[in-house]
């Protein structure tokens, strides 16, 4: 592909927004908030990537997908994995949250100011993504992947996947 112009940071952000999350393809890596920073210098695109859950098997796939996408732009990617504490579920964008809800995953509750307590998760402040009721209860803190818990909606009698707040 002939390049009409040099790759810019805006090109990179736009390209990364096209990469679906490997496990929940309704949202992109940008929606997920895992790209902390992008810098373009002499044809090298440096991406600061903040992993979500540390044992998530999708992390390697995300990294490879970003490298492939940058190669499509005709540049070389240098993905730096930041094992610091900069990602939390509060980094998921409002668009990302809406896409999750529409796909039947209850988006994560905002992080509380203090410590996350069991009593909060046992409360019925969590909304069913199917019928919108808050008459839901915690079924299991753990679910099919590290990022999700299981709740049950007593209004529409449907179990659903609730994103953990971390």
């Amino acid at each position, binding site marked *: 592909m002939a390049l009409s112009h040099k790759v810019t940071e805006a090109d990179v952000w736009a390209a990364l927004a096209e990469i679906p999350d490997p496990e929940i393809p309704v949202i992109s890596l940008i929606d997920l908030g895992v790209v902390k920073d992008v810098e373009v210098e002499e044809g090298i695109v440096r991406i600061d990537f903040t992993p979500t*859950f540390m*044992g998530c098997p999708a992390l390697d796939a995300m990294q490879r997908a970003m490298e492939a996408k940058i190669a499509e732009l005709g540049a070389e990617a240098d993905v730096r994995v930041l094992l*610091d504490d900069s990602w939390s579920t509060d980094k998921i964008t409002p668009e990302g949250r809406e896409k999750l809800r529409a796909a039947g995953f209850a988006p994560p509750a905002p992080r509380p100011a203090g410590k*996350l307590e069991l009593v909060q998760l046992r409360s019925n402040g969590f909304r069913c993504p199917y019928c919108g009721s808050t008459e839901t209860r915690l079924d*299991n803190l753990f679910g099919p992947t590290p990022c999700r818990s299981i709740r049950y909606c007593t209004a529409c009698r449907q179990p659903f996947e609730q994103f953990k707040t971390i």
Partner: protein
Amino acid sequence: MSERTDLLLSIADDELVLGWRNSEWTGIAPFLEEDVAFSSIAQNEIGHARALYELAAAELGTTADELAFDRSPAEYRCAPLVQLRKLEWARTIARHWLYETADEIRLAALRASDDPEIAGIAAKMDREEAYHRMHAEMWVERLLSSDEGRARLNEAVDELWPYALGVLDDGLRPELRSRVERRLGRALPDVEPVSRDVHEAELAELLEEMTMVRRSAPAGARW
């Protein structure tokens, strides 16, 4: 080996070996929710181990996989608490609760570290560990609510107490004692902690099983 690397390997080995132990419940836990919970906790712990091994590997000029799989049993630094193979539910829950309580105390200390890499990784781990602690607490609550449950939890804690103390350094042990005693509503005996220098026979068996595939493909397996 620097003190920093020794610390990283101790925690990484704890998380890897406990992750493996937790995964032994996959498919055979008493009910489906626990099957899912222990499998998920295992996945988190092994993810933590990997990140910690990567930090240590950068300093030692090796790789996370080599640290995880290619050392001899005597070189592992994990606390004997995680080495024990306790395929009995009350003891599994007691171990889980004691480890997660000790780990919370350790992570709080590490988060205050001057070393930004260690402080950052500890804070990141702690976000996930909060769920392990809540899970353990739900079980403690459940067991303490009946006479039989209380008796079985207490019996298991008594047996594991010297091992639990061995997870932490001297300075952090009083905090563990005070939390566990407060939750159980009774005093625990003064005992000698089981040190990280102890290698239970069960660790060698675990490593034999865990590294089987890797050893079967010396040129490096790809999948």
